[in-house]
């Protein structure tokens, strides 16, 4: 399983700044596991990462500064992050959430 | 080209207006038409000063980073200086404008060019700019309200002689104590 093989597109939502991921139906979801996965730059249905990233860049009203990052995919299909940054973006500020709730 | 400029007389509201004005920002190699407003770079001015003085309707065009002291000698011969902002975040043009107004006593038109955006207009005006060409694609009319965002300011600048704490209905000060030119350099330009 190559670390750089799979990608997802992410951004922060304009209304509240929350972390969102591009889903298959071109909506934005807060659930990392529901992100649309690109395999070496293309989706199963043949849409390209570059193309959808360009499209995402136009959704200015809805999201800010979209970009893509590399993910890994377990045998069960579950997505995993490869960097501390994306892991924490997906999980939230764990220590603080534990103390102040809203986990 | 549309520019924003201070409305005359200055006591009308709105104080700023959008007008049509033609002005050729001539490249150094470009021949000048025999009439009409043009601007030239400092290098060209240095090379062709006599011809340019004879022609008239010539303004100076400089980057904000250039020290106004480098062209103070040109100021008596021009009534338009354009300061270029390569990026809105390059704040050197603000200091240059204040120096032109407050230190070198320049009273001609001071115009901002380049990456000029709505939310910088107020600061620019306070530093002494009285004319603006908005960045490409920006609507000058929609930008006019920027000048009305604030009615008060704390510090003295090119547009205001006294700091707020000396204006705020306190006894014991007189407007005539201060000129708009730096203390020691009055009239030196």
């Amino acid at each position, binding site marked *: 399983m190559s670390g750089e093989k799979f990608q997802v597109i992410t951004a*922060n939502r*304009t*209304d*509240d*700044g*929350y972390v969102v991921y591009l889903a298959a139906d071109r909506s934005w979801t807060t659930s990392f596991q529901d992100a649309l996965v690109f395999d070496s730059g293309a989706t199963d249905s043949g849409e390209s990462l570059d193309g959808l990233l360009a499209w995402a860049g136009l959704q*200015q009203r809805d999201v*800010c*500064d979209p970009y893509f990052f590399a993910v890994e995919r377990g045998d069960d299909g579950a997505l995993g992050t*490869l960097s*501390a*940054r994306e892991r*924490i*973006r997906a999980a939230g*500020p*764990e*220590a*603080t959430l534990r*103390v*102040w*709730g*809203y986990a | 080209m549309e520019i924003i400029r201070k409305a005359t007389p200055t006591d009308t509201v709105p104080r700023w207006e959008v007008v049509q004005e033609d002005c050729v920002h001539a490249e150094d190699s470009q021949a000048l038409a025999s009439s009409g407003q043009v601007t030239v770079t400092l290098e060209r001015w240095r090379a062709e000063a006599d011809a340019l003085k004879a022609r008239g309707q010539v303004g100076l065009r400089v980057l904000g980073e250039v*020290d106004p002291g480098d062209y103070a000698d040109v100021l008596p011969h021009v009534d338009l200086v354009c300061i270029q902002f390569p990026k*809105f*975040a*390059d*704040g*050197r043009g*603000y*200091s240059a404008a*204040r120096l032109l107004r407050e*230190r070198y006593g320049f009273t001609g038109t001071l115009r901002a060019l380049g990456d000029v*955006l709505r*939310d*910088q207009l*107020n*600061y*620019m005006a306070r*530093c002494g700019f009285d004319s603006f060409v908005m960045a490409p694609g920006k609507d000058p009319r929609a930008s006019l309200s920027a000048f009305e*965002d604030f*009615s*008060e300011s*704390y*510090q*003295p*600048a090119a547009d205001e002689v*006294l*700091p*707020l*704490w*000396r204006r*705020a209905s*306190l006894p*014991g000060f007189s407007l005539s*104590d*201060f000129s708009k030119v*730096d*203390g*020691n*350099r009055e009239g030196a330009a």
Partner: protein
Amino acid sequence: MYQYNEFDQKIVRQRAAQFGDQVRRRLSGEVTENEFKPLRLQNGLYMQLHAYMLRVAIPYGLLSSAQLRKLAHIARTYDRDYAHFTTRQNIQYNWPKLQDVPKILEELAEVEMHAIQTSGNCIRNITSDPFAGVARDEIEDPRPYCELLRQWSTFHPEFAYLPRKFKFAVTGAEEDRAAIQVHDIGIRLVRGEDGTVGLAFYVGGGLGRTPFVAPCIQPFVPKAHLLTYSEAILRVYNRLGRRDNMYKARIKILVKSMGAEAFAHAVEEEWQYIKDGPLQLREQDIARVKSYFQEPEYPVFQGTAPTVESLMLSKEKPSDPAFSAWVDNNVVGHRKPGYVAVSLSMKRETLPPGDVTDNHLDALADLADRYSMGEAVVTHRQNVVFPNVQVALLPPLWEELTQLGFATPNLQRLTDVIACPGLDFCNLANARSIPVAMRITERFQDLEKLYELGQVTLNISGCINACGHHHVGNLGVLGIDKLGVEHYQLMLGGSSANDASIGKILGKAFTEHEIADAVEKALLCYIGLRTSPQESFLATYRRVGAQPFKDAVYGDH
């Protein structure tokens, strides 16, 4: 404290309205994020990892109880019931919705607060000594000068787009508790040869990628020239500071590359032009601002005023030894007899350093009213000071603080950790700071163990930007990124006090799981090396150098 006049009031209200319009244009899709970014940043609104973050200015850290209540209300109404005190005496909300921010600014304006210039390449909130106005070692109260600087720098039209952000700190005391030598401009009130009080200017200090301790470029500037001299420095910086590389854009790089003397000369030259202009302060300009910071009316005591010593000998003193530890550690003398200044520790094992809930903020307001003449001060170590407490009221105050969890007697001790938000929140971070701070403090909950270490500071930053001041902690921890994995460098020997110094990296970086051990080893090494319990960690390190610490920390790897 300073009270807004109608003009101050108008300015903050117009600002809130202006931002309301900008937000409306953003939410309607009229402006793009790229265009909106510089606008929201000028109002302290960042996009962090998980949400927007709003940074509210607390000028020189001073808060009234009414302001504390408003901050609590905002946390409760628009955020997730908590907020975070920063290392620059500000407060941050981590979860505001964009459409709510204009409303928050309006609410803040009601209590004379705002978020103006809490980010962006402009002059930021002015910081000062947390004991300003009550410190015994103070030549003069620095806050009127902070306030004058605040007014002068607010929406300064010439300095809104500096090469980089710009931070002032001012102190009036002999002991530097405001870290003035690691600021862009540090101002110290000093007494001149003839006894008059003036200002010493330190310029070009700072942390970040290239940390410097600021040189003094002018040992005595008359008070009347606070603003003219500052304007001259800013103008030189605005014109000559580098703009081609954001890592070389701070004024420290300019001062370093020109040389302090040449820089001072350039400032002097600029100053000659403007020093006699209208920014020069007249006696009455200073007097008017000073009148807002006049001493409160301290009640007169019958006979001699009670002292901490007399309290400790009296039967009023609670028998719990924790009270004595708290008095020894968190209570300092006051220039008025019968009074003390009390530091509340916002650092607990279970809490992220500097975090407070809405209920905490309300409780602080209530306590400030009953024990501290309605005022509290946020410190750059992310704690809170009650500046005006009667000695006789220490026992009940201690009891109430103990219940709230703010009476931990750990000020300037290892567990009084400074930590920036780090990778839990911050977009620029390489590694998390908060869990590391919590893990290290967990190990030193035993007070005896803690006190054995004497006074020692531990500062943690999640990246080289150094918001956690790691270079000037006696121990500093810096988060770095190694191929997507968080790592931590340990540095030793920093200080932000009068003998300011920059810490040195000890050796290779540690993982999240190793760093607490490394810190503990360095501390044990110190205990073995010190000549007596009176020799502090810093003094020991300065005496013996890094090698023994290296051996102790890396030896058995």
